[in-house]
């Protein structure tokens, strides 16, 4: 059994689920990591340390910025010549495209967002959520290679053995780009909800603190956003203390309190952290489908009848502007931070 594992990275920062894919590949047999980009030696080295039996590196200026077309052609060319049984990817914005396009070239199929994958003789049976997690399906792919993207945090991450040496082979890039990358907008910082172990989220409730007096000269909308920013500052402080990420409901995003990249739910990110703390979020179905697979859910809400409490392990009926800072203080003390 030979598996390719695509190591997804952004300017050398690897999406951690890539390593989880590598661990899964090793459980089936030989794992060959693929690293594409420009000046990516450090990523190749990390792949060796995480257990890759071999690393194929396409280091080329045409691959400096991810573009679906060139990356897909490079991947398809490697798969055609080396015939892996399986190609694994972490599930990210980039890999959905990359897997989709190279599957067209290779005349095979893609199994996306998997939470389980079992070998069955020469083929594989994959498990994935559908209908927003209301159902699960088991699916199989009749094409070869089988291409599969795994959900972050659904598979164990292998140990990194630093200083380990291994075979790194240079391969060539293929294909022609159909677009140019003009740059990156700095207005939004990185938000990696997909692999966060802990998420603290804020909803419309973060703007509801009448006791706060906004600076003079603000109209009603500006005052609301200003209040929400004070609320999100409390949410962020708790997230920071726990080494977690900040999430949001759609009402908070639509209200202009926080950028869309933070949104959890049906039209945002689907997440499954170990701990999810929902502050001032009512628990609409479209929000719940994005977070109900979290291991432990804590809900803080003024309204004892809020539907979020039906999904939660622990609930507090109270004002988030009082409870959240108190919780941050209590945890700081107990964790000795």
């Amino acid at each position: 059994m030979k598996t390719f594992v695509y190591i997804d990275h952004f300017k050398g920062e690897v999406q951690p689920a890539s390593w989880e894919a590598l661990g899964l590949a090793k459980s089936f047999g030989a794992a060959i990591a693929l690293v594409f980009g420009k000046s990516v030696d450090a990523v190749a080295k990390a792949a060796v340390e995480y257990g890759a039996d071999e690393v194929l590196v396409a280091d080329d200026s045409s691959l400096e910025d991810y573009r679906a077309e060139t990356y897909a052609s490079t991947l398809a060319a490697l798969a055609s010549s080396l015939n892996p049984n399986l190609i694994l990817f972490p599930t990210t914005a980039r890999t959905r495209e990359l897997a989709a396009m190279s599957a067209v070239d290779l005349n095979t199929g893609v199994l996306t967002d998997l939470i389980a994958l079992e070998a069955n003789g020469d083929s594989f049976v994959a498990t994935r959520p559908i209908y927003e997690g209301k159902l699960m399906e088991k699916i199989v792919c009749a094409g070869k290679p089988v291409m599969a993207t795994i959900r972050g945090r659904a598979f164990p991450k292998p140990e990194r053995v630093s200083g380990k040496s291994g075979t790194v082979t240079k391969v060539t890039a293929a294909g022609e780009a159909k677009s140019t990358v003009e740059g990156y907008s700095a207005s939004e910082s990185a938000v990696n909800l997909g692999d966060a172990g802990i998420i603290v989220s804020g909803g419309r409730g973060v703007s509801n603190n009448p006791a706060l007096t906004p600076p003079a000269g603000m109209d009603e909308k500006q005052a609301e956003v200003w209040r929400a920013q004070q609320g999100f500052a409390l949410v962020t402080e708790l997230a920071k203390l726990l080494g977690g990420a900040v999430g949001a409901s759609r009402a908070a995003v639509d209200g202009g309190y926080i950028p869309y990249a933070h949104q959890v739910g049906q039209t945002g990110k689907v997440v499954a952290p170990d701990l999810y703390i929902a502050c001032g979020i009512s628990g609409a179905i479209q929000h719940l489908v994005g977070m109900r697979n979290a291991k432990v859910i804590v809900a803080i809400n003024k309204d004892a009848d809020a539907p979020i409490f039906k999904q939660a392990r622990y609930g507090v009926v109270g004002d988030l502007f009082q409870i959240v800072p108190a919780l941050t203080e209590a945890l700081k003390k107990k964790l000795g931070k």
Partner: protein
Amino acid sequence: MKIIACIKQVPDSEAKVKAEDGKVSWGDAPLVINPFDEYAVEGALQQKEAHNGTVTALCVGPESAKEALKHALAMGADEAVLVSDAALNDLDTVGAAKVLAAAIQKIGGADMVFFGRQTLDNGAGLTPPQTARLLGYPMLGLAGSIKVEGSAVTVERVLEEGRQIMKATLPAVLSVVQSIGEPRYPSFMGIRKASKANIPVWSLADLGISAPAAVVTRSELITPPTNTREVEMIAGETPAEIAEKLADKIIAEKVL
């Protein structure tokens, strides 16, 4: 500017979806336009208005999917086409892309082909890039904003790491996310026009292709166990007391 918006019909998000005899059942819940595709229609209409274009809504599905197309017409699309054929029962994502690409070619191509980010039912998000690959158009995925100048299109892609600004030459396939703007409500005039619209139905023979064989197939459908655990409410005299108790509970869960 010729614009196509690809849409799908799905059970409403409020539907109680169950596995019944190995099939997906949503009872008598209504079928609606895929909510993500409403953003695709909205994005298409914004470009139509900015560049004096026309929007054709395109759907592959059963006869009932005409209702989803009517929603797009009511929002402001100019035309609608349904591809429907008894042989199209078990489409996988690449199969859907093959049928859509053939229909787009029969329409005569387009300057911009819009998709939603993913569907509510399958949720894979593979069909847009696969359609782009089959057509040989550049793929501009997860666009949160779009600007067209002449034949150049620039988008801001919403990625895990922030926003990436990407530029390509039309024709192009785009998938859009919520930041594009709230889908407009159908107008009264639009609803009247849509209710009278005669939507052409194309068969595979009309497209000159045979039914694509499914590469990915379902072997089992599982209803996940429901959460039966009771919530434990934490109460106390003061916020500090509540926080103290809650912190102990969280620490005991060993998730920190």
